[in-house]
């Protein structure tokens, strides 16, 4: 895995030297902060009527009312932002013909693929970590539960991992970055909404579709639960996408 890290380090240098990272991170933080503070504002408004709500049997908590919806919204923003981060992975290498340097080096293809995935994943993690200032802000205001925050962030990271792996795979299909970004967004969105068809489908198919939905697995993480099936789903999703990426790149050499 030494080679994967060398490749990831090079890509990270390229990310942090280019304006794309700073523009994307700024846009991500502005949109996320806007949503977060709106949710917080709504929470404050609701808190004023807390007595009334408690009388109605409703429970007000920072975790349920602020953190959970904020992370849910963050996962939607990531759906739109991640394709811009991953689109360069292989498409740019192929376009500028630098991929030949990697192919002529004594590095197995799987390490190249993992290196590309790792670089994008680190960039996304940095963005998510910066956005966690909001949680620090909440700790200043109140006493949110730490457990669901940790599992929530783990869920968001795993979900982001799925988008990143799809992005790296899409980038291996073309040498056009825009095409790669559109494919990533389209497929990720499809995996988001696939569960919507569950109601219309039969009971068994419905269950399968529900299980395939990326967002369904996130819900339990946000509620503080770490279910093995959710972990297996996300990790399998990531591994399958990276495997497909590997196969595409390998088959390119034969064609």
């Amino acid at each position, binding site marked *: 895995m030494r*080679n994967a890290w*060398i*490749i990831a380090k*090079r890509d990270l*240098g*390229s990310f942090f*030297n*280019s304006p794309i990272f700073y523009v994307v991170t700024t846009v991500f933080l502005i949109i996320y902060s806007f949503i977060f503070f709106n949710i917080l504002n709504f929470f404050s408004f609701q808190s004023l009527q807390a007595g009334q709500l408690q009388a109605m049997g409703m429970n007000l908590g920072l975790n349920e009312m602020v953190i959970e919806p904020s992370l849910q919204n963050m996962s939607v923003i990531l759906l739109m932002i991640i394709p811009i981060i991953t689109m360069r992975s292989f498409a740019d290498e192929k376009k*500028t*013909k*630098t*991929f*030949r*340097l*990697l*192919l*002529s*080096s*004594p*590095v*197995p293809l799987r390490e190249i693929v993992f290196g590309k995935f790792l670089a994008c994943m680190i960039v996304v993690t940095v963005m998510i970590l910066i956005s966690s200032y909001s949680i620090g802000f909440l700790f200043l205001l109140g006493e949110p539960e730490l457990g669901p925050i940790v599992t929530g962030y783990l869920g968001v990271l795993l979900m982001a991992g799925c988008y990143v792996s799809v992005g790296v795979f899409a980038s291996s299909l073309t040498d056009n970055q825009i095409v790669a970004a559109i494919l990533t967004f389209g497929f990720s969105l499809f995996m988001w909404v696939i569960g919507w068809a569950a109601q219309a489908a039969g009971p068994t198919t419905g269950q399968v579709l529900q299980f395939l939905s990326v967002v369904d697995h996130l819900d339990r993480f946000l509620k503080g639960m770490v279910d093995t099936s959710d972990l297996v789903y996300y990790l399998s999703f990531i591994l399958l996408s990276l495997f497909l990426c590997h196969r595409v790149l390998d088959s390119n*050499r*034969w*064609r």
Partner: protein
Amino acid sequence: MIEVENLTKYYGPRKAINNLTFQIAQGEVVGFLGPNGAGKSTTMNILSCILPASSGTARIKGYDTFEHSIELRKIIGYLPETPPLYPDMSVRDYLMFAAQIRGLTGKQTGSAVEAVIEKCSLKNVSHRIIGRLSKGYQQRVGLAQAMVHDPDILILDEPTIGLDPIQIIEIRKLIQQLASSHTIILSSHILPEITQICQRVIIINEGEIAAVDSLEGLTASLRKSERLSLTVRNANDDIEKKLNSINQVLSVLPGEKNQFLIECALNSNLQDEFARLALDNQWGLVEIKPLSMTLEDVFLKLTIEEKDVEA
């Protein structure tokens, strides 16, 4: 050292190379010569372990380029036609990266990069961003990445393409220096390049080998006549007629500035005859010079004659 047997590669239904067979010995400098699209780059890609062949085998030091590709890549340095450069990196960072992915570690990496910077005369630009360098320097950086791990074999695909004449001379000099310690395979469609650098030529045309030999060998095997150049001061219409009247002269072609290209039968030794004729007729003899067959002649003869035979 390199053994290629019946190597064939298809891109979809198109056959890029067909049944190539040749050997290259250790320390040899061999030129792949052929027009664009002849199959030179495909052959080089297979030898660099980037592409698998559709059929046939390519072995380097006894190892198959497909089955043992990871091991072989450690001893091969490859410069593709377009140098694989990251324009946003500095020369030094890029070479460090190239060295690391070639398996160099720790202090080894730093000293290898310093050595290759020195060898390729990149010291002045080592901190500059690659994207802002001239084409000549970029080509040098491309060559440096191919050499950074001190490979036994260098595969250089059109290393001087797109360079200005001064840059071409510089790169050629560099390759000539490397020739003493490496096995080099060089492709080009610029013929003088091959003549100057390579000991042996493999001429590829339409995916097939048209000839494999030293330049002298190719010239000798194809030569059916010899050529002379005659230059005089006072040219007139009579000269061509009089030269043609000599028995063993096959043809006379007027060239530039009172020069005549004369094709004679092999071993006819007509220089004395031409000199006498020039003096007798007061043509004002300037020079009589035997012309050797150029690689252009060899190449055209091989590729065009083949087509004629096929037709």
